[in-house]
């Protein structure tokens, strides 16, 4: 993410925003399956872009943070660490 900041900086999107993008995609699918409103390429692209535009900002920093935590814990508990 060179344009907007380093990956180390953990600033995940607000939960309300994440829920909103998940719901927008679900609404598109449910309305299509129930026959209320047909899902078009445009609605799929828009809802998918919203979901794909928000979720990586949550998943990738948390994944990196989690992996670092696991590696750090392993180092602390290893016999060579002296802790």
């Amino acid at each position, binding site marked *: 993410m060179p344009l907007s900041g380093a990956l180390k900086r953990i600033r995940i*999107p607000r939960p309300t925003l994440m829920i909103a993008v998940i719901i927008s995609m679900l609404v598109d699918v449910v309305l299509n399956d129930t026959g209320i409103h047909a899902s078009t390429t445009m609605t799929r692209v828009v809802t998918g872009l919203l979901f794909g535009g928000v979720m990586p900002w949550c998943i990738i920093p948390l994944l990196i943070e989690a992996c670092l935590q696991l590696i750090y814990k392993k180092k602390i508990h290893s016999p060579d660490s002296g802790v």
Partner: protein
Amino acid sequence: MLEKPNKLRSAILGGLVIGAISGIPGLNLLNCCCCAGILLGGAMSVYLYRQEFTNEMLPLESSDALILGIIAGIIGALITTLLSAMITLILGPVETEMMRNFMEKLTQKLEERGSIPQGTLDNMRDQFEEAMKEGGTIGGILRSLVYSLILYPIFSMLGGLIGFGIFGKKKPTISQQPPMQQ
């Protein structure tokens, strides 16, 4: 500070959700949408785990969500395979028929639109029939289990991280204690 609660209970419950969604015919179509059922199970396991925390415990970390998601995915894969095999044994090939109907509708739509050449559609049908024939055998079930054991933990882990992003931070509750009398 107290130790964190045991992860196994929440992971088993998350795995049960994954297994129920992915194993029951019809309900498993939810997984056509980005493996939504598996993501939901992973997120649910994190939500349930977070409920077990008290203010005196160490805080929930993203590594906990990652591990919970992976464990829930493994349990979910085992339950899904078991449930699918049981449903096929008891009710017969219900799922196969449902998938066949779904596939027929899909190919019909594609034929009407003319977006895919006829040869490709025939190949799709042949491959589908072959996959359905293999699905009922022990080899097919074992192959499905291996694929599930690879894919489910990955998607469940992502679900766990999304769940951590949504429910992760628990606001500390201020306990009102009576003033000390001197």
